[in-house]
């Protein structure tokens, strides 16, 4: 091989033998110890996300408006990812939208043991928002989901609503005609491809 080092051979400096006492001759060396750890976080959402979570409890989806481009972002972060400017205005977007793209996930996921694969993980763009976010699409066979398919939010019963994005159980087809996506850009206003 041109690159004069055989990967099966340890460099000399690393191959120094360790001499163990005879009593350990037949003992298997420990190579790894598994020590699972977990951390719980207390997240402070900030003004925009707090308003968004309070909105979710009212079955309203709130987004931030970029003060420079007018683009609407959901979930709102208090700052525009296009201009870098702090946002000052919030608007309600629709709980109807379309599927920008999707996958059919065939793996179980740890955070949702209730969710049995296969399931459809989609980028759903609500009407009035310039971006989509990952959402569950259900109420349809996975093979029948399409890019551009119109969907609507299915909310938890009113008495179970919390300050959480989990209030939307999933999105399901509305039966309206598909949206035609004519290029690869996330929906934007003309000239937004900067």
């Amino acid at each position, binding site marked *: *091989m*041109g*690159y*004069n*080092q*055989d*990967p099966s051979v*340890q*460099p000399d*400096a*690393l191959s120094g033998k360790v001499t163990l006492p005879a009593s350990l001759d037949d003992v298997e060396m420990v*190579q*790894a110890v598994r020590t699972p*750890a977990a951390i719980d976080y207390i*997240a402070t*959402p900030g003004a925009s*996300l707090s308003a*968004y979570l309070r909105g979710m409890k009212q079955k309203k989806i709130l987004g931030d408006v970029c003060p420079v*481009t007018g*683009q609407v*972002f959901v*979930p709102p972060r208090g700052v525009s*990812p*296009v201009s870098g400017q702090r946002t000052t205005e919030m608007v309600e977007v629709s709980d109807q939208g379309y599927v*920008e*793209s*999707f*996958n*059919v*996930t*065939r*793996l179980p*996921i*740890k*955070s*949702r043991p209730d*969710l049995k694969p296969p*399931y459809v*993980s*989609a980028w759903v763009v609500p009407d009035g928002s*310039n*971006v989509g*976010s*990952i*959402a569950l699409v259900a109420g349809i066979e*996975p093979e029948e989901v399409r890019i551009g398919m119109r969907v609507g939010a299915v909310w938890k019963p009113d008495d179970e609503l919390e*300050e*959480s*994005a*989990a209030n939307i159980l999933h999105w399901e087809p509305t039966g309206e005609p598909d949206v035609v996506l004519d*290029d*690869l*850009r*996330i*929906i*934007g*206003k003309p000239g*937004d*491809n*900067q």
Partner: protein
Amino acid sequence: MSKQRAAVIGVGQTKYASTRGDVSMAGLVREAAYRALEMAGKTWADIDAVVLGKAPDFFEGVMMPEIYLAEALGCVGKPILRVHTAGSVGGSTAVVATSLVQGGIHGTVLTLGFEKQSESNAMWALSLPSPFTTSINAGAGGYFSPIIRRYMEYSGAPELIGCMVALKDRQHALNNPYAHVQDHELTFDKVVESPMLWDPIRYSETCPSSDGACAMILTDETGAEAHDGPVAWIHGTAMRSEANNYGGRNVVSPKASEDCAADVFAQAGITNPREQIDAVEMYVPFSWYEPMWLESLGFAEKGEGWRMVESGATNMVGGDLPVNCSGGVLSTNPIGASGMIRFAEAALQVMGEAGAHQVDGAKTAFGHAYGGGAQYYAMWVVGAEKP
């Protein structure tokens, strides 16, 4: 050009594997560093600074490992710098190390990327539940598969192009003794029949989880001219980043990717990448990213990258633009090292030191890395001739 010239004079890699249980993190990085020093004919005393990169600390659960690894990397009392740009970090780390030499700050720098995925759980470390969004995403494949689906629909590419890339890269890996996946029995049919994980991505179209480290020794013009051995001259480096979700974003070919490629090719005097570049090491963790990046980087027209795959243009044998002769990320993926392996393998090609996966007569090579939600980019062009 106000920058000073810089060059690679040493490359060192560990044997990549799903579990390197024979070494600790410190042993892993030292193995790669030692081999890079040996190739460069240098000792620890010749190294002025170390620039190290890895993926988030969250993966292995070791906070700020650069501090604990300083001794293993022979840099106690010397500057050590950690770079962090998600999956592209191996590339960005090499770019930062290069800039220290080009800026005249240090004469000779050791740069290294590593990951010990056997001690971590990268997939679930990337999929944390939060109260602000729906927590149904299953790792990087969950994130990238809808983008791949957009590309497939937009380009009209035949459904099995991704399988062709997967088989090609695994066959390339058989010529690289360091590569993790060494599957002599793999066939096209086996790739096609492997289970869908995130439809449209199959298991065999997905990168493995690897343990490993990759190191390079970079030096200035004086050091490279005095060096008795192969040299890869750095002709250009570039980095870019962007937000991962904004109106008007092209998710298949993000602006940061196109801008980064335009910048690095302009520095290297490359006006026709397909003609002028002899070997490409591209960051392809999911097979469909090969045609997608071929288009984004300017090797193919928009919507036509899959035709290069289909025609065999990116094969080491018979292709005019061999891509990932090392086997690529699809065959070896210690995340923090994966970008640096691309850069190092590009350097080995122009040094004529790539062994059984050497592209004959390679004079100019391209190394590429991306990370995050296709947000972070790092690229370099290296050449056998001094720029």
